[in-house]
């Protein structure tokens, strides 16, 4: 019988996560969301791709490695993703939203709500 990974001691391969998803994500999340809309749009696309590539077990690790500024930006992009209504993307974003709130707390949510220069429902 297949035991779950945590019992067999299988751990996410931190080195490969660092190399791929985390570095792309950190770069995209370093972009100030108050900058030009095109930059925000490109970062949004990058974040979307990065979260769909991350494995289930690695999500918590990835979120812990982000600094507070990046977590706030991440929350904004998650809300932008949730507003689209696409079932697959929303399922992903809902999962990440739960993990990110556990990690960063409600303050992260309220900071994304109060940043008026970044609308959380993209109008385009």
């Amino acid at each position, binding site marked *: 019988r297949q035991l779950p990974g945590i019992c067999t001691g299988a751990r996410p391969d931190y080195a490969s996560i660092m190399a791929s998803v985390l570095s792309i994500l950190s770069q995209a999340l370093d972009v100030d969301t108050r900058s030009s809309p095109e930059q925000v749009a490109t970062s949004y696309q990058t974040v979307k791709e990065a979260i769909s590539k991350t494995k289930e077990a690695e999500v918590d690790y990835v979120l812990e490695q982000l600094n507070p500024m990046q977590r706030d930006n991440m929350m904004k992009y998650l809300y932008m993703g949730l507003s689209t209504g696409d079932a697959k993307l929303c399922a992903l974003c809902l999962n990440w939203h739960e993990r990110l709130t556990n990690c960063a707390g409600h303050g992260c949510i*309220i900071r*994304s709500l109060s940043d008026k220069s970044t609308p959380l429902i993209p109008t385009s």
Partner: protein
Amino acid sequence: MSNTLRPYLTCVRNTLTAALCIQNFPCQEVERHNKPEVEYKTSEELLLNSVLICRNENEKCFIESSINSVRISIKVKQADELEEIIARKFTSFLQQRADSFRVLRRKPVEGYDISFLITNIHCEEMYKHKIVDFVVDFMEQIDKEISELKLTVNSRGRAVATEFLGAFT
């Protein structure tokens, strides 16, 4: 499909807990008036970013927050015409009795099925976490209620038809 229900409700719960940071704020434009700013939307600085949380194309939750009030609009899942009719009847039944719910809005926001309006007075009189519990429980239960109603409609229709047409055989 139900595997996104729990994350969806958790997301709404967390967002609501964060967005319900409201306080008393008398109207800036008119003396001695105290209005829920989210309904009027006259001043930009009093409003927070509104958030649309979609579970899929058919189910979504729109949360608008301001300094003294929060408006939550919900679109419930309606798979076919019968469910649409049932949902409409059910929500209008609740909305006509909005006074006893206190946080319910008599008319839903454009594009949604039902809306809640929570003001600072509600937060003063009631526990904030209980208000959030109420809204999230409502979202969870309304789907069950509508499917139950649909089942009873179908079984009643079947019973009536059998009785009626049995007279002709």
